[in-house]
């Protein structure tokens, strides 16, 4: 592949996180600043090097209590920086580093910090349980107008019918799905920053309370408090960077109706995005050493395993069964930080990206996958979708 790719003009230079937990009693702004300062230091840079800022969400999507935190201008002011590029990523996030990579690739900035801060754990505590989508607003707006009034009050209720249809059409079982959270919990046990680290068994999974059939408690990610920041730098600055990671290829395609009730084909979630990504690289699925696949729900991992070509359509449940293929010493170590299912819902593939960078650098501690040179990162699937391969520099 000799054609130059825009993403090759960008690198991921730093990742940093605040304290992460079910509840962290600090403001969103303080969590955000902790993550940003850590990420900039991790890159080997100082704040004076930073000339771009972006956050997700930028505003206007405060549907879930604790979902949106802070304001880009407030953080900008707090950091005392001068910027030549900013983005409040409401839609079009695709991947955490997508917009920032385009900014540095086109010379609009040299070092961009992008962050995501969640306080959904505290919001759930305040509501006496995981609160309804949109419950911070008096009426359901936009696409939610067709979902919330009929009782589809949470993303899990909205994704569950597609999971039900998947199990129905492909003969997959809940017990097979259970190997995703069980295996990821074993990975979380090796991650001191994960929210849940105690062992989880298939029996625990099958005995868990049902949330919205076929999705039980352990099919859902864990509402958490925490911030993740990522520094994206122009590739010609690598001499200044401590340990950059290459963006081999990335893509984000929305080809199905981006509304939870209107997906045309549940069996093709992520496929257009993955195809566009693979078209930008000579690497193949067998070259991937770790997979950080978006896991808001277990079924999303199923879809990404198939879309990315790690197995065939309808085969992902069998692929994960028993957990050996997706374990740290398996053929495709999956969500090695515990994923959002155990590591916490840091959302929008920010946690997944941070882990991919650490694995590629060999800085993943007890959960390090030996010889990790290629990491896959994916995000969401239908409403938004992004897929990338990151590689060792």
């Amino acid at each position: 592949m000799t054609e130059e790719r825009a993403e090759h003009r960008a690198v991921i230079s730093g990742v940093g996180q605040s304290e992460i937990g079910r509840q962290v009693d600090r403001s969103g702004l303080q969590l955000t600043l902790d993550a940003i300062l850590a990420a900039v230091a991790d890159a080997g840079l100082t704040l004076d090097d930073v000339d771009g800022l972006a956050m997700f969400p930028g505003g206007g999507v405060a549907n879930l209590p604790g979902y949106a935190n802070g304001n880009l201008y407030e953080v900008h002011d707090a950091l005392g920086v001068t910027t030549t590029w900013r983005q409040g990523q409401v839609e079009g996030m695709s991947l955490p580093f997508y917009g920032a990579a385009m900014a540095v690739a086109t010379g609009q900035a040299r070092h961009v910090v992008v962050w995501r801060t969640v306080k959904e754990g505290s919001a759930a505590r305040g509501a006496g349980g995981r609160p309804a989508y949109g419950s911070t607003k008096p009426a359901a707006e936009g696409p939610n107008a067709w979902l919330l009034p009929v009782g589809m009050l949470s993303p899990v209720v909205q994704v569950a019918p597609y999971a039900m249809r998947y199990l129905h059409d492909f003969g997959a079982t809940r017990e097979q799905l259970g190997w995703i959270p069980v295996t990821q919990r074993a990975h979380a046990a090796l991650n001191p920053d994960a929210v849940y680290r105690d062992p989880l068994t298939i029996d625990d999974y099958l005995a868990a309370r049902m949330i919205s059939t076929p999705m039980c408690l352990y099919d859902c990610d864990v509402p958490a408090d925490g911030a993740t920041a990522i520094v994206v730098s122009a590739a010609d600055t690598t001499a200044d960077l401590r340990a950059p990671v290459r963006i081999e290829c990335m893509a984000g395609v929305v080809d199905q109706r981006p509304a939870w009730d209107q997906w045309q084909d549940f069996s093709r979630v992520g496929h257009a995005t993955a195809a566009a990504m693979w078209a930008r690289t000579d690497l193949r699925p067998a070259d991937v050493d770790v997979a950080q696949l978006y896991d808001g729900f277990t079924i999303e991992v199923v879809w990404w395993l198939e879309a990315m070509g790690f197995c065939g359509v309808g085969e992902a449940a069998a692929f994960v069964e028993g957990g050996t293929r997706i374990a740290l010493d398996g053929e495709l170590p999956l969500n090695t930080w515990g994923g959002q299912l155990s590591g916490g819902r840091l959302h929008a593939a920010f946690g997944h990206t941070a882990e991919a960078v650490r694995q590629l650098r060999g800085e993943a501690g007890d959960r390090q996958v030996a010889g990790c040179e290629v990491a896959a990162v994916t995000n969401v699937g239908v409403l938004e979708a992004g897929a990338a391969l990151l590689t060792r520099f």
Partner: protein
Amino acid sequence: MTVPGIPPAVTEETAPFWDAAREGRVVVERCTACGAHGFPPRGICRSCRGREMEWVEVTGPGVVYSYTVNHQRWLPDLEVPYTVALVDLPAHPGVRIAGRLHGEPVIGGEVDFGVEEGPGGFAVPSFRAR
């Protein structure tokens, strides 16, 4: 007894749907140029991008694309469990509507549809297994 939940925000595009629902009817958009049906209402045809849309009352039966039984009490006073289904309307190609399903849910099963009392005094789509 009011139904717990979150009512819809009504817009220029969606007011006719909610007004019709209060009268017990479910209506969707149809393009006057190409005849394609559309839902949710957008004021534009997703097929030919025509801007002249008219409202038509849907006719049954509906077919269950899929469903879920929700067990989680997301709001105080929410009665659980209940079934929500995504229902395709074969007489109106491309139209799928979400609503509570009463009776035994079966993927591919036929349902009658109408409305039931929803939150905020709105009438919302409702299905009954045949």
